[in-house]
């Protein structure tokens, strides 16, 4: 916290490039994440083209060789999970919201925050560079299972896999530092009166996500170092010939990989919850149970990882214990979902575009959660493992959190971020197109999976038993292209609103959390006068107050009389 220099003006570089202001850093992440999303969408398009029209020239690209196809699949997963979902959900919203929501001037370690971003930028540069080197980027799947990833002779690739590993290691370092910052900020810099149980749920979820990321990624960092050594120093950690074991990587990977799912899920659920309470004008139902179950779910996420490995050659006696924990993890999430549904009961709903996206998150996530039960059941997984059923399932959960949740967050906090409103009509059009085409892609994909179509095959027409689903695959591809194209509505809305949007009031949605008590956009160091907190963030439609909202910084004395 430096010397209260709220009005100090910096030059362009200090303000936008090497800024240590958490709001600017959040926007830097936003730009980078949305940029990566374009590339992620492009890889999705090429993958879908190849599946629907195998071995024809993809429009705008050309013939997709099998080797290139594997690289596309690998990069799609890597980009979407590590370079879109993680920065968008954690870095953008975590960075922007945590200090504002707790009434702090900035993060606990602003310079470390900037450093996190630039390490992430470096990770991005390394991954991007791998597209342009001879033999192309990594092609061993986003899970990078050795031995395939351990020797170039197996993939036919080159240094792409090394760059992929280096890029992931950098990205993990960046998010570890980011997580340390989030946690310390929330522990130390909360405004007076803002107790732990007056924090907005999204802050709790961001913090839980930071903790489970921090505690799960270590073994994979170690695993990645070992894989780099296998590739470059001739060690044999993952090679059976030298006494190693390929399964070791899978355990280290999924010990991180499954908590990672909840790292991506919780912030999205948090956004959904905040947006729904605001537009339902109703307090979140079962606030404390939601927080407790969030923490329980975070803990449970560490004891379910082997459900990714039922048929991997893992000891079959491990399958049922992990199957039980996996299916039991539905309980905390069911509580959160039921509570949100209960929040909707007796509410007063306005269907703005952020609300539509938040409800979309809810609806889509329920579907994804329910299909997860199939995957979690070890015997069913024998058949559906590594098929498109799994692909459809995790797109239902992750697309809901990352894109529906992410869009809800962007539409909702855009006025606070940029001081202008986004266009409502375009927002609603964007929602309906996204919602319809998303389901158009992924509902049929479950059926394709149940027919047995394997993941990561470039040409289903090579198999007799998959010939019948060709029309379905073509339909999915058409829907996917439309889904990607309908995001243009968002792009137009985003840039138009940025330049020409209606100037936003400080609190356009009449929300209670602290970020809405300062100006839009907030000044450097966030608050002109430091806020004090008197209540929890969900006093919507409090019976005795005149208005149906009551910000956190209103004291008891003024609560009943004053319209905020």
């Amino acid at each position: 916290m430096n010397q209260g220099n709220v009005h100090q003006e910096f030059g362009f570089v200090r303000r936008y490039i090497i800024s240590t202001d958490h709001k600017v850093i959040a926007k830097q992440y936003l730009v980078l994440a949305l940029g990566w999303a374009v590339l992620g969408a492009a890889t999705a398009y090429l993958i879908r083209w190849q599946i629907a029209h195998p071995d024809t020239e993809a429009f705008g690209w050309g013939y997709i060789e099998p080797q290139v196809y594997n690289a596309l699949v690998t990069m799609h997963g890597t980009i979407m999970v590590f370079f879109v979902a993680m920065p968008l959900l954690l870095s953008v919203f975590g960075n922007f919201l945590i200090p504002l929501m707790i009434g702090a001037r900035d993060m606990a370690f602003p310079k470390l925050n900037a450093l996190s971003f630039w390490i992430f930028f470096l990770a991005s540069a390394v991954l991007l560079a791998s597209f342009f080197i001879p033999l192309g980027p990594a092609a061993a799947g986003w899970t990078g299972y050795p031995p395939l990833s351990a020797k170039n002779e197996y993939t036919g690739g080159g240094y792409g896999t090394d760059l992929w590993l280096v890029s992931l290691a950098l990205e993990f370092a960046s998010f570890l530092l980011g997580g340390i910052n989030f946690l310390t900020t929330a522990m130390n810099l909360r405004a007076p009166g803002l107790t732990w149980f007056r924090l907005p749920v999204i802050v709790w979820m961001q913090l839980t996500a930071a903790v489970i990321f921090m505690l799960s990624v270590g073994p994979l960092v170690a695993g990645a170092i070992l894989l780099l050594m296998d590739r470059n120093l001739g060690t044999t950690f993952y090679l059976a010939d030298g006494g190693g074991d390929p399964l070791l990587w899978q355990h280290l990977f999924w010990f991180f990989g499954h908590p990672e799912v909840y790292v991506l899920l919780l912030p999205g659920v948090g956004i959904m919850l905040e947006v729904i309470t605001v537009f339902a004008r109703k307090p979140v139902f079962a606030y404390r149970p939601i927080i407790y179950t969030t923490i329980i779910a975070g803990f449970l996420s560490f004891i379910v990882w082997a459900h990714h490995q039922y048929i991997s050659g893992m000891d079959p006696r491990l399958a049922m214990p992990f199957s039980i924990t996996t299916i039991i993890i539905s309980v905390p999430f069911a509580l959160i979902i039921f509570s949100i549904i209960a929040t909707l009961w007796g509410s007063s709903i306005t269907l703005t575009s952020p609300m539509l996206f938040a409800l979309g998150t809810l609806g889509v996530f329920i579907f994804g959660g329910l299909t997860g039960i199939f995957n979690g059941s070890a015997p069913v997984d024998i058949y559906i493992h590594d098929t498109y059923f799994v692909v459809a399932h995790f797109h239902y959960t992750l697309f809901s959190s990352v894109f529906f949740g992410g869009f809800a967050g962007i539409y909702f906090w855009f006025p606070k971020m940029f001081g202008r409103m986004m266009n409502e009509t375009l927002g609603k059009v964007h929602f309906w197109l996204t919602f319809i085409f998303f389901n158009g892609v992924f509902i049929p994909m479950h059926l394709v999976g149940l027919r047995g179509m394997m993941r990561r095959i470039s040409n289903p027409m090579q198999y007799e038993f998959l010939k019948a689903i060709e029309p379905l695959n073509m339909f999915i591809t058409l829907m996917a292209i439309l889904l990607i194209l309908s995001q243009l509505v968002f792009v137009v809305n985003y840039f138009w609103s940025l330049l020409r949007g209606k100037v936003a009031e400080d609190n356009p949605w009449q929300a209670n959390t602290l970020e809405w008590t300062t100006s839009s956009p907030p000044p450097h160091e966030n608050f002109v006068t430091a806020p004090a907190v008197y209540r929890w963030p969900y006093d919507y439609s409090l019976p005795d107050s005149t208005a149906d909202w009551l910000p956190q910084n209103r004291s008891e004395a003024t609560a009943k009389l004053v319209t905020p």
Partner: protein
Amino acid sequence: MTTQTAAISEMESPVGKNGTWWFLASEIPIFGGLIAAYIVMRLGSAGWSEASSHLNFTVALLNTFLLLTSSMTIVMAHAAVQRAALKRAAHFLGLTILLGLGFLGMKAFEYSTEIGHGFLPSSGIFWSFYYGMTGLHALHVLAGIIVNVVLWSQTVTGSLAQQPHRVELAGLYWHLVDIIWIFLFPLLYLA
């Protein structure tokens, strides 16, 4: 100045200490995962003890002594800087740095004799783990030395007097590196 945070920060640890502990928490699974993998792989197959017997036990014992002592010296530096005895802190920090460099020097000597005897990272699964674990640990020692050198230079300029807690934070990290070695030593050399 920090009126907004005064109410809470009185009850909580200082920012730097919380942040450092979270950082240590994120380091534990990195080495923890590595050690867990080493133990299960070793329990699951034979021949590791034989490979382990080629390691230079004396050097490792000396290194254990150096690192344990350096933990003591850095905590002494902390005690000194707390009562503004900057010169004494500088001596202890300097000693810590020298002990750390001594550790790395011995490690380098150890590596070079092993490689001279033909034991490379590719010489088998034990050697893979040996070089992987000690190498990663040595990098941590190196990072700690760099931090300590920065702090030492701040005793020269005198700026450390305003930031005495920095020695404690550097110490926390340094002790973790020491603790990791406390486990690596028996795992690799004694078992």
